[in-house]
Each structure stands twice: as structure tokens, then as C-alpha cells.
């Protein structure tokens, strides 16, 4: 079967790959490009562990065909830190122990980052609704929500 040749941008790097028409973006990220930070939890868009951004919009990479990346800009968890310097959300999640097993964490971080870019001062309710599609079976969510709110406050302070 003829593979599709896709030219895209991933975490700012021009990237090309070959994929089958039925491959999801998550398949290609993990199995072709070795970007294994995005996780497959459910494969049906319920758990959010595969969250990425497509042209800065939060999506589930399991619900996107890899072929759709053509000409678009993808960002994944691997592009979040600045070299060795963690993103403030990543740093705060460590400080506040907002993770246990870590499987949901890349998706939660990507989703939280998308929220703070859109709304630097979210309420607790807004954080909870925004992250409703990121399932965590360990933390009970409280630590995640507090870490996001705390990061938002710090980032607002740093921006002043």
C-alpha cells in the first residue's frame, strides 16, 4: 500500500514522515518519530493522555490522522521545556507533587499550558472544566488543579 508523505512542523522543527492513511498522529509520534511523551490511554478521546496542540489548539492526537498534520504545526510535551530548563508548569508539578504514576502528566501539562496561554488567570472552576478531558486515576485532581492555579499566579507575577 502506498504510504503518504507528510511535511509538517513539530515543536518548531520542520519534520517529514511517511505514514499509512489510517495511522493516527499518536501512532506516528510514538512509533515513527520516537516522541513517546504523548501516551495512549484509551485511544478514543476520553482520557487526554495523548494531548498535543495542532496550530496551538488543544486536541487528542489519537483522534487525528497523521496525514492531517500536512502543512500544520504540532506541539508535544517534548517541546515544553526550554532545553534543561523546565516549563513553570512542569517545575510546579514536581514541587507540589501533582503526579503519582505520571501516565496522565504529559497530557495534563500540554492541556494546562494551552489553558494558561488562552486565560492567564483562570478560576478553579475554569481549570476543572478545561481539564475535564484529562483523566488521572492517582491524584484525585486536587493537587493538579492547585499546581495549575499556583503556576498561573507565579507566571502572572513574573510577567508584571
Amino acid at each position, binding site marked *: 500500500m502506498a504510504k503518504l508523505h507528510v511535511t509538517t512542523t513539530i515543536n518548531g522543527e520542520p519534520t517529514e514522515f511517511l505514514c*499509512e492513511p489510517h495511522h493516527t498522529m499518536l501512532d506516528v509520534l510514538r512509533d515513527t518519530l520516537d516522541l513517546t511523551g504523548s501516551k495512549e490511554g484509551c485511544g478514543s*478521546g*476520553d482520557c487526554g493522555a495523548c494531548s498535543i496542540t495542532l496550530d496551538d489548539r488543544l486536541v487528542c492526537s489519537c483522534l487525528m490522522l497523521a496525514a492531517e498534520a500536512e502543512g500544520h504545526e504540532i506541539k508535544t510535551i517534548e517541546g515544553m521545556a526550554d532545553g534543561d530548563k523546565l516549563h513553570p508548569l512542569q517545575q510546579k508539578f514536581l514541587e507540589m507533587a501533582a503526579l503519582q504514576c505520571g501516565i496522565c502528566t504529559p497530557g495534563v501539562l500540554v492541556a494546562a499550558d494551552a489553558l494558561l496561554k488562552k486565560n492567564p488567570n483562570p478560576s478553579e472552576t475554569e481549570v476543572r472544566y478545561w481539564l475535564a478531558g484529562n483523566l488521572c486515576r492517582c491524584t484525585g485532581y486536587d493537587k493538579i488543579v492547585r499546581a495549575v492555579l499556583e503556576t498561573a499566579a507565579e507566571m502572572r507575577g513574573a510577567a508584571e
Partner: protein
Amino acid sequence: MTEIQYVAPSTLDEAISAYAAASGAARIMAGGTDLLVQMRSGMVKPGLIVDIKKVAELNAIEQTPEGGFRIGAAVPGAVLEEHPTFGKVWPGVLEGLNLIGSTQVQGRASAGGNLCNGSPAADSVPALVAAGAIANIKGPNGTRELPVEKVPAGPGKTNLAPGEILVSFTFPARPKGSSDAYLRMIPRTEMDIAVVGCGVSLTMEGDTCTAARVSLGAVAPTVLLVEDAAKALIGSKLDDAALEKAAAACSAACNPINDKRGTIAYRTKVAGVLLKRTTAIAADRAKGG
């Protein structure tokens, strides 16, 4: 896995040609949030996926010369939410669309996809029906228009002919004092499928309702336009007697199934309750705007 082909045409005519040529083996992909799940579970095995997100008409948000809106069938809910005026004129349509799934799903899922997926519980459809939205359809034999309530044919089925693509929705101009609302009953607060959904669109002159459309989801094989409920509201001051009559009309229109989400008796009763609650929200908005 059977061989699948993928095309992403940039014009509507190319999309229709590719879709029609595949004669039934093809599936249209807008946001893909239903299609990819169905493919993964083996429910559908398309020979061809026609991705219509590069077609301009399916992604446009425009104001019509008549003072209404034309919304591309593939416009994601998150994009429509960012439009400066659509959600002010049609808050119920927007809230129905953006009750679908998570933030991630809303970044992709569209009203056109929700309608063509054919679920009786589709959250955006009752609000579209209440709004009086028109589906603009184009196929190998030209264009036609259908009221949204005429599009679903049953669970998973639509009245679109082979090769026809849903292009956009047209929303009428709104008289002063008009608004709408959508409510659904779910046992959780988020991320669930409607047990009953209710869309209400109203025009108020002072305290009197002068125009109304009422729609119910998840209580019949297709989303319903409940004209008897609208008749009970029109001309009234939305007093208790009118609301009781409209609620009874909603319950009478129900033809639901028993399933794990709700029984026939529960759905039939809740349809009337939701009519009252949704009407109250729509009326408040109409009086405020």
C-alpha cells in the same frame, strides 16, 4: 486491515467528486472525533476518507446579507466560541455544541459532524433545530436545502443522498427580543451523553412570547421538532399553565428506548421538566437582549 485511502481536497467540487466516485465506501471526515473512534472499534471500515477541512465553504463563519449567519459544517466548537458575535445571538446553539466531549474534542468536533453522525442524543442538534437552522447540501446533482430536523433518518442514518456533502448551516436573522438555550440531563456534570436534551428558541415582546421553536434529543430515533410545545408557548406570558401544556406536549412527543442511561418513563418525564427549565433560560436571555 483493509486498505484505506485518504484525500484532503481543497475545493468542494473535488470533495464531492471523490466522495461520489467511492459510491458508499467513503466517509467524510470533519473533526474525526466520531469517525476515528468508529474505525478503531471496527464499526466502520471506510475504503476512502475524504477530509473536508481544507474546503473553504465548510470552514467559513459568515454573516448573510439577510442579517443571519452561515456557519461551515466543519467549523469546530472551539473556533465558533471565539467568534465575536455568534454566541451572543445564538447562545443555545453554542452551548449545545460545546457540551460535546472535552476541551480536546471541542477543538475538533463540529456541528456538521454531530448532525451527520446521526446520534439521536447529539447535543448540538436540538439547538440547531430550535434555531430553525437550514442545512445547505451539495452533491453530484447540485445544491439543496433541508431544515436541520429533516436531516437525521434514524440512529446513524441521514437523508443525504449518495455523494451529497453537508456544506454549511444558515441561521435566520433574529428579531429583537430573541434568544435560545439548550439543556441536557446527564447524571454527571461533564463528559457524558444526554439522557434527554432540550433546545428552545424564543422571541419575547415584553412578557409575551411571540415566536417559539422547541426540540428534543435522546427521546426518539431522531431529534424531534415539537410543534405542539411551541404552540403552547406562543401567545402566552410563559405562565405556569402554558408551561405545563408545553411540557405535556414534550412528554407526549417522546418515543424513547430503555437503556442504561434512562428508562422510557424517566426520559418521558424529564423531557417535560427540561422544557420548563430551558424555556426559563431562553426567556431570561431574550428579555436581557
